[in-house]
């Protein structure tokens, strides 16, 4: 699922219904953005696992309530949004990679949460032990 926000305005080609859908879609993308950054999001519970060095390993955000109505265009009725954020560390024990995956069917299946270029990994680059750059990547 692309993280690109949808901007739409009612006009002759793009009516109020599509516009409302775009707003819902963008709202969910905003929620995912907050989750990817590690922040709490109203309506979502978080489960966290740790690796052998007690570092963050996986944080899973799960929508607390399965709404009866579908959330067009992203989620069917009675399903929950889930985001899984995976943290990877380099040989110096530093956080080097974050990956986002999302599910619109209560965690049954996940797909990459990608940017406009299709990248789902956010990488941290260290030079001589110092964090010097951050960027999206396909791996």
């Amino acid at each position, binding site marked *: 699922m692309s993280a690109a926000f949808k901007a739409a305005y009612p006009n002759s080609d793009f009516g109020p219904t599509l516009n409302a859908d775009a707003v819902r879609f963008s709202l969910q993308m905003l929620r995912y953005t907050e989750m990817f950054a590690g922040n709490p999001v109203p309506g979502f519970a978080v489960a966290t696992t740790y690796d052998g*060095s007690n570092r963050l390993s996986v944080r899973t955000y799960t929508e607390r309530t399965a709404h009866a109505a579908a959330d067009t265009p992203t989620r069917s009725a009675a399903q929950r949004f889930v985001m899984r954020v995976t943290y990877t560390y380099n040989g110096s024990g530093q956080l080097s990679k974050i990956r986002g995956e999302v599910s619109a069917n209560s965690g049954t299946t996940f797909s990459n949460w990608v940017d406009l270029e299709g990248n789902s990994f956010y990488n941290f680059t260290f030079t001589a032990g110092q964090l010097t750059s951050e960027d999206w990547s396909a791996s």
Partner: protein
Amino acid sequence: MSAALAVIGQLTNKAFRQATPGTFSFTPTISGWYWITTMGGGRAGGAVTFSAAGHGGMYVRMRHFLTAGTAYSYTVGSGGVFGGTVNGGNTSFTGPVFTQTSLGAIAGTGARTDGVTTDNANATLSGDTVWQGALTSAAVGTRAGGCGCFVGGTHASSYAGGAASMYANGGNANGAGAGGNGALGSGGGSGSTAGGNGGHGFLEIESMGTA
């Protein structure tokens, strides 16, 4: 918070364990003395009667003076895999003065440099901080070698248990199924249907303080 986490990790990265086999580099952010602990991989058990199970890996703990910003290479050895590479891999750290190596367990001599090949030999201390890997045997009815507070795996019928490591018991033998797996450098037990895998080695780094 993502970037904040990365920065916090950079600033507070004083100690960690690398338990994933492979080759990595460690770049300290502070110059000073570091304790490096290395554990070699354990050997896998076999699936032939009276065959030896897996020996345990070697434990080594030594000091290195590391310089901030310099990348130091290290390798974490895999545990032996039944049906694959059965020997444990070496775990090593390339320090500025010397390379510290914990032997992975191999057939016969295990993970020892002292020449001891006695059946079910317990791990023994050499020098200040080196523990020669415990050994197993094909002898029936005896327990494989132990190490520190951990014990070797038990023998079962004609199958031998794996030797212990400094951090884990050896895998138990199984006369009616697969041998138990080792963990954290211990050896896998042998079994009638399959041998247990050896435990992976690992490396730990801890800062002792600034220069």
